[in-house]
């Protein structure tokens, strides 16, 4: 009974610290929590708190700047947890994602938010940055044996590069789920470009990536 009360109270306090992006309080709470619980369990509580904020962001109850700060806070805390956890590289759930903004495009806000979200949700992220050439994407997919390629473009003038990258990836025969997103795109263009998923915004990236993975790796 006492344990349950501790758990509930701790969940509430962690949720509140994540909501207020109060990294210092969160760190202290996690230390306190780790006395009673395993790092895996504590990470679970943290991810529940993030999920709550993500749902609030999806319903526009939380703004983008608030959500960016939440991701920063959770990722800093997860770093703390990961140093205590067993490496998960042999786990079935382990997925490596190569992400980047296509060549000629300097806008990386969306990509950075999604990379942060991927990390928080337990994916390993290889972030190639912005203005990335096709060859760099292909090389990264091979080097890191990634399951997902996430491409971003924010300009109508740069988005055709996505089509070329996807074509190249398909020609090489790499088995990879390609998810694309960015302001000038829509689901129809994503399909026409040969992508496996289209993330309309950071709000939809996690679900869309998960379903693209399940389609490509059933």
């Amino acid at each position, binding site marked *: 009974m006492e344990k349950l009360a501790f758990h509930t109270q701790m969940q509430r306090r962690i949720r509140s610290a994540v909501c207020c992006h109060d990294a210092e309080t969160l760190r202290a709470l996690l230390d306190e929590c780790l006395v009673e619980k395993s790092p895996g369990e504590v990470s679970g509580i943290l991810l529940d708190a993030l999920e709550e904020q993500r749902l609030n962001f999806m319903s526009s109850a939380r703004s983008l700047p608030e959500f960016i700060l939440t991701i920063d806070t959770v990722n800093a805390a997860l770093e703390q947890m990961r140093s205590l956890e067993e490496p998960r590289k042999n786990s079935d759930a382990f997925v490596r994602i190569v992400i980047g903004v296509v060549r000629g495009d300097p806008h990386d806000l969306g990509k950075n938010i999604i990379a942060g979200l991927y990390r928080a949700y337990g994916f390993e992220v290889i972030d190639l940055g912005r203005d990335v050439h096709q060859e760099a994407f292909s090389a990264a997919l091979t080097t890191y044996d990634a399951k997902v390629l996430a491409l971003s473009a924010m300009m*109508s003038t740069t988005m055709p590069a996505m089509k070329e990258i996807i074509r190249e990836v398909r020609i090489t025969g790499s088995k990879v789920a390609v998810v694309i997103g960015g302001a000038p795109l829509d689901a129809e*263009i994503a399909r026409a470009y040969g992508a496996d998923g289209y993330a309309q915004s950071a709000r939809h990236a996690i679900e869309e990536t998960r379903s693209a993975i399940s389609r490509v790796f059933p």
Partner: protein
Amino acid sequence: MSQDKGIFRKLGKPLLQGMIPPPGLFPEKFLDALSGLCSLRGKVSRLTNVERLITTLRHREPDRVPCCPLVISGSRRLIGASFPDFALKPETTTRALMAAFDLIGGEVVIPMLDLSVEASDFGQTMIYPENSTPHPDYDHPLITDHTGYQKLKRINLRDARRMHSLVEVLRIVTRQVGMKGVVSGFCFGPLGVLCMMRGAEHLFRECILYPTEVMAALETITGVLAEFIEAQCETGVAAITLDTLFASHNGLSKPLWEQMEGPFVRELSSLIRSKGCIVGVHNCGHGSYFDSQIRFMEPQIMSFAELPEGCNTLGELKKRYGDQVVLMGNMNTSLLAHAGPCEVIQDAKRLIEALADGGGFVLAPGCEYPPNAPLENAFVLAQAAKLCT
């Protein structure tokens, strides 16, 4: 009496030059009577472009919906110019924009260069790609941390090369368009300008973590934008469009936007009105805060790419805001870039059916016509305004 003389002079001078006087200088009753007459005449004969717009702006039904194809940097292809030439050579910009106006048509022209004009004059390093829109060099932002906001220096408009270029473009385009259409100036909102010098991600964090510092920079920028707007108004434009991109779900929360940018754009829109010009607001974000924007800026025209916050359908939008502002947009730019003429006409029809009833609607893309997309659909868009009404 002397005040009346002043107004007659302000109205008479542009008319004698074959240009539209600042619409705000006309008495409301005169505009109501004129638009009423135009609406009646529109039922039996074709109106001129300006008559059609006056009728639309007074929320009366014209002969057909007016159109603004928003072909901006895409117009460079009509004269074989590159992106850098369009952005940096006022004579090339003017030639391209006028070619688009003459060939494609439409009633509203919004000459602009790109969204980095103001930031580059503040000293932001720029990149001018050959095949894409100019943008800041985000590897070298002018403001590198939160302490940089308060160090941002006010600049003199005389030394602002790119802002000066746009004013020059407006001066020429306004004269060349004359009474054939309405020309609007353009100004990126202070938060947008700041974003170009700091990067969106950092700016978003710092709006919450260091609001005082960010607001100091916004105040500096607003001072310069006020001068920029005054210079644009003096060219004879009938309207100025303000772009408050971050007043949407893609930007700040509504309370934070009202706190950070609201007061500054209120100042800028008051200035526009004091010059007799129409205030337009452009929105390309999702879930724009129309209610806040209307409260702070009192615009006459709202251009939009996506439905604003609180509206799930075009019908809801028309019902909620249709009598407060003239709606402009929201043709899908992806469709313009990729679809065929039939789909463009269908989309135009959908918009006209939902928004044109009772006037107060301008058919336009939700955002700039995609600069590298084939221009055929711009012609189709202009024709659709004629065919679908």
